[in-house]
């Protein structure tokens, strides 16, 4: 088990290094002169030179890369060009919105998907199964930002149960903050839950066809016992894979949803960074998001190892 964890950890670090190189190349090397790009066409040469100096652009690329990486490791993300404050402060504030939103949506989608997938698999071809499959088919097809707009229309404009957007901050109290995140989380969770429920159902149905299920039945286990003791844990293994892959879609979705609800999260930050051509902000936020995806992949791999004893050995 220890070698398994160590092996996964090494691949985590390698992925991070390669990802950071890719981001660095795309943002700092491809455009030629990032300073000129950030300042736009009408910039004075001396302003550009000042910015180049501030960004340390005159150093060779690999020195710049390492100073960026060491900065990241020590929590120094540079100074935002447009906001004139450390990027780490900007990101720190925004994380308090984006991370709770992601967790909220993940919990919602996982709970709903497990219940729905389980019900559909047990009552295969029943009315419940058909309606769950119908709803999830729709859920997969609905763009989450459009669904978010419909939620705003119904629950904020017509029913006035929620506000149409904005975030009061955690200082306003736990429940108001959660309330502000509820519609965004539902909008984010719907497509995820639909996909997960479908995977859960088909995985369970496949597992119930396995030889060892028949062996367990021959031992005298009832259908329900077989499901809980044997099928569920095996069926979860492919579901975990999808859950890991889904996380990156969840992050991407969060960027869009934050813009629908005007939530001051990472998504809005990076979006504003683009419109203001603030490459320093864009570079750091993209790196953070990629780090999150790679970290979740690592955690899913570990969960995989815990769920499936075959993986702990040879791999």
């Amino acid at each position: 088990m220890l070698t398994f964890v160590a092996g996964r950890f090494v691949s985590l670090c390698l992925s991070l290094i390669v990802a950071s190189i890719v981001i660095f190349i795309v943002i700092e090397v491809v455009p030629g002169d990032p300073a000129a790009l950030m300042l736009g066409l009408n910039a004075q040469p001396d302003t550009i030179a000042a910015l180049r100096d501030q960004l340390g652009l005159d150093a060779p690329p690999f020195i710049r890369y390492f100073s960026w990486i060491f900065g990241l490791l020590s929590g120094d993300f540079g100074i935002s060009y447009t906001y004139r404050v450390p990027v780490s402060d900007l990101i720190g504030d925004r994380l308090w919105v984006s991370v709770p939103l992601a967790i909220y949506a993940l919990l919602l989608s996982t709970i709903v998907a497990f219940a729905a997938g389980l019900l559909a698999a047990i009552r295969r071809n029943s009315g419940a199964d058909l309606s769950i499959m119908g709803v999830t088919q729709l859920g997969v097809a609905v763009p989450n930002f459009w669904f978010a707009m419909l939620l705003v229309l119904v629950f904020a404009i017509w029913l006035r149960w929620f506000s149409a957007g904005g975030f009061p901050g955690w200082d306003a109290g736990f429940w108001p903050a959660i309330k502000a995140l509820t519609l965004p989380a539902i909008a984010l969770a719907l497509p995820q839950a639909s996909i997960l429920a479908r995977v859960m159902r088909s995985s369970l149905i496949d597992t119930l066809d396995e030889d060892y299920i028949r062996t367990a039945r021959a031992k005298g286990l009832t259908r329900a016992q077989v499901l809980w003791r044997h099928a569920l844990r095996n069926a979860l293994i492919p579901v975990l894979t999808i859950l890991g892959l889904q996380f990156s879609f969840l992050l991407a979705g969060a960027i869009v949803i934050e813009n629908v609800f005007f939530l001051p999260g990472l998504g809005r930050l990076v979006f504003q960074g683009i419109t203001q051509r603030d490459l320093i902000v864009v570079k750091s936020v993209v790196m953070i998001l990629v780090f999150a995806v790679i970290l979740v992949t690592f955690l899913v791999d570990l969960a995989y190892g815990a769920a499936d004893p075959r993986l702990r050995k040879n791999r």
Partner: protein
Amino acid sequence: MSGPDTSLWFAARTSRSFVLGATLTGFFAAVALVSLFWTPYDVTVLDIAGKLQGFSPAHPLGTDHLGRDMVAMVMVGAQTSIAVAFVAVGIGVGFGVPLGLMAAANRRTLFDEIIMRANDLIFAFPALLIAIMITAIFGPGAINAIIAIGIFNIPVFARLARGGALSLWTRDFVMAARVAGKNKAKISFEHILPNITNLLIVQGTIQFSLGILAEAALSYLGLGAQPPLPSWGRMLADAQTMISFAPHMALVPGLAIVFTVLGLNLMGDGLRDIFDPRLRRSRQ
């Protein structure tokens, strides 16, 4: 070519998912084609006086905030969505499938390892992040959307092709082809590719629908198609601020996206059932 074809065709006609999905997909594809030659109104002509109309005989789906006919807007928007998604799937298939086939043919070599690691790496960059980086450098545009979605499609198809090919490489008919002296490229082309086409077609429809969703999201954020090029995502972005007094502006393009994606997904599900002989037998 009598046997398998007729039974496939039979299965296709009797699959409810496939028929419904193909009808929906066909409808929107036809709409996009027709819009190349004819639209009820010209979407480049603004009619501010006639803005934000509701449903009427002259404008069955109403008009938008600039007085443009929604039917015409949705028709032209279909072009953008379908074109972007189609090219993006093309990029994924064009690069991903050959890479996957080569990786499988050279299994457990450095080449295979590099391809798989590169795939994992791209999976860490959701299409939206790629689009954000591209836009930050080159500015927004439909081409960005195509590149971003296309890049994300490459590992999807590479993995699928590799996985399907790996299981085929262990089959005896491939061994027989090797005994017949055929090289890896020839075997990949003659024996492997035809036997993973079904998988690729099914995944293709799924990626197509994901492409339409992704294009809509990018355009909605202003990272994709730029005005005056109409696109369903942009229409939704325009609709957002007016949703309280002109909800039809949000409903119409949204439903267009939902039905297109639904059609593609149903078609994919149907194809999967049709291609899986196990399921086909149980239905007949």
